[in-house]
């Protein structure tokens, strides 16, 4: 027997939810648990709009449990802490990303890779528990999954780092594409891609942006600091860059061919997939064999790593380039996001517009 979102838990909450596969969001009254001994409760200031939110509300992954209250790039100010909480106190700024729970006993949890725990709990629309995300007035989460927010990092521009940021930061470190003097390509200049360029430049890496849209070149080079720009369907350009890159971070979730990207890699080069098209890729073996090249995947990042990434961003003054929107603009924002019409992340001004 299910219980209504409104009455399932003791503490009333207000949010925006999608109720069916149209994906249209509208206000919802729901409820959250009380602040447990290990919990941190915070008023949401801002929440980033991730493409995953769009996939979820439209049930594109066939796993939506309506009503879906999305949002996993959440920042705010602590209002209450449980008796055992040590990490933060009332008044501190905090963030929560894509995870709010894990088993804490498997190999993955033990090695700070909670995102690969088979019992990982997602911040919203989790498969086994009912979870509601950051398009809401407040959040409560276990201390372990709370990110401490550095004083000098803006909340609005920093919110998207909690998903987009960690999703590109984690593979840069894991696959070793973070050494000064390396040459790394970034495929797709959207929410993830633009942050990847910023991180890589801060690490002293030479960056080539690979995009289907020639109009993005100017901004890539002038605003984001990319060194080079390739239009992926321009044969001559791609041919000229063959065998020049140590690695590529591929953020694109639409179907696209991998072979031209593998060709851009030097021997021992690595192509890392963080975007997940639904249709499998098809790759001939030879491009990988000739040059001992690698295609790997990566999923967000662990909590320890997310904190490290936020601290790195604060140190290097890296934030996402955002378009701040009132919450009642969310449906228009989703339509624009579906057409990639945003530079480069929508962020909802929750505290000021969700009433």
């Amino acid at each position, binding site marked *: 027997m299910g219980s209504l979102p409104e009455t399932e838990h003791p503490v009333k909450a207000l949010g925006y939810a999608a109720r069916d596969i149209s994906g249209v969001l509208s206000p919802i009254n729901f409820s959250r648990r009380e602040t447990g001994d290990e919990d941190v409760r915070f008023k949401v200031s801002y929440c980033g709009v991730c493409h995953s939110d769009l996939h979820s509300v439209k049930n594109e992954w066939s796993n939506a449990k309506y009503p879906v209250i999305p949002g996993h790039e959440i920042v705010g100010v602590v209002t209450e802490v449980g008796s055992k909480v040590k990490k933060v106190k009332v008044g501190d700024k905090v963030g929560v990303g894509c995870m709010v729970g894990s088993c804490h006993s498997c*190999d993955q949890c033990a090695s700070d890779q909670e995102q690969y725990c088979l019992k990982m709990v997602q911040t919203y629309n989790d498969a086994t528990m009912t979870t509601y995300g950051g398009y809401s007035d407040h959040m409560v989460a276990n201390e372990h999954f709370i990110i401490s927010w550095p004083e000098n990092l803006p909340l609005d521009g920093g919110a998207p780092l909690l998903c987009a940021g960690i999703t590109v930061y984690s593979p840069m470190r894991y696959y070793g594409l973070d050494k000064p003097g390396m040459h790394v390509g970034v495929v797709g200049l959207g929410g993830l891609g633009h942050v990847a360029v910023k991180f890589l430049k801060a690490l002293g890496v030479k960056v080539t942006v690979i995009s289907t849209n020639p109009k993005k070149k100017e901004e890539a080079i002038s605003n984001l600091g990319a060194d080079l720009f390739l239009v992926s369907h321009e044969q001559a350009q791609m041919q000229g860059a063959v065998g020049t890159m140590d690695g590529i971070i591929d953020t694109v979730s639409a179907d696209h061919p991998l072979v031209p990207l593998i060709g851009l890699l030097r021997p021992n080069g690595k192509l890392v997939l963080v975007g997940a098209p639904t249709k499998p890729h098809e790759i001939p073996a030879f491009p990988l*064999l000739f040059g001992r090249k690698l295609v790997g*995947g990566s999923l967000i990042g662990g909590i320890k790593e997310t904190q490290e990434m936020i601290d790195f961003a604060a140190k290097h003054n890296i934030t996402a380039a955002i378009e701040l929107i009132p919450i009642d603009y969310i449906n228009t924002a989703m339509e624009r996001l579906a057409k990639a019409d945003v530079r480069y992340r929508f962020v909802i001004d929750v505290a000021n517009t969700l009433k």
Partner: protein
Amino acid sequence: MAQTTPNHKLTVSGWAAHDATGVITPYVFKRRVNGDNDVTIKILYCGICHTDIHHIKNDWGNTMYPVVPGHEITGVITEVGINVKGFKIGDKVGVGCLAASCLKCEFCRNSEENYCDKIQFTYNGIFWDGSITYGGYSEMLVADHRYVLHIPENLPMDATAPLLCAGITVYSPMIDNNLHRMIERRVGIVGLGGLGHVAIKFAKAFGHRVTVISTSPSKEVEARKLLGADDFIISTDPKQMQSNTRTLDFILDTVAAPHSLGPILELLKVNGTLVLVGAPDKPLELPSFPLIFGKRAVKGSMTGGIKETQEMLNFCGENNITCDIETVTSDKINEALTRLAKNDVKYRFVIDIAGKNSSL
């Protein structure tokens, strides 16, 4: 018409395919005279690699007919050029896939000649003098000494021949992925053929627990009893595959037929790597979800450098590792190729080139 240069004065008997029908017939051709950097090798044995079939039949569209295949060659040195150090007449040697490389790039200087972008292969390649290279299905070979390996004294020349390609092809990625420095890892081997059976031996010698992943249930008994595999999974059995998800640290995929990598990737633990060494002629299906939701990687690997090949042979000498072979005389090459195409060999054919029943 075979391509030769003026210094190709030595008449050699061998076996070649003349077109994509893939029939091998006796063929007389010319090789270069032994140069200052060369050694001349009387060939005793040559392994039959699946790549030979691909070239014979022009599967990859790049065969220069007539093609004399063979890149798993063992023999005895009969002549040594004046610049040659480290080899003398009478030495037991082997030649694998590599005939020439640029010798200058970072890969050549690091003895990773196999990744030099000017690499030329032992057959169907173009040597420095512009001539087409002809391989080990022949009575003798002239090779630049920098691409020749010593065969350890205690290893038999016939069962060692396939190590020159199959052996190094599986050894190199194991070293690249540090399997020689770790102990008791769970290693998966996909495909139990020429490459797969040697891979099992290496993985066991390195101290790991080996799981064979195969489509053939009939191979299980030998895999366990003869080769020492610890586990055996039928890849077409969904229940077995499901119950083995996230169990393996490393998988070596030796299969040359097209197949989907998705189910195999799910066998890998988080952070696991699957190395592809087989080269199907059609693209492989690679879904991104198993990679992303497990931080897994697929990596390619192609033979190995000369230094590493020598290390591999020395390792085999120290650990008494050779291949399980079926020897054929040279008049039976076509039958062997037909059986190999059906996977009907345990586990590598080796041509007895110099044997008394040969047609030479």
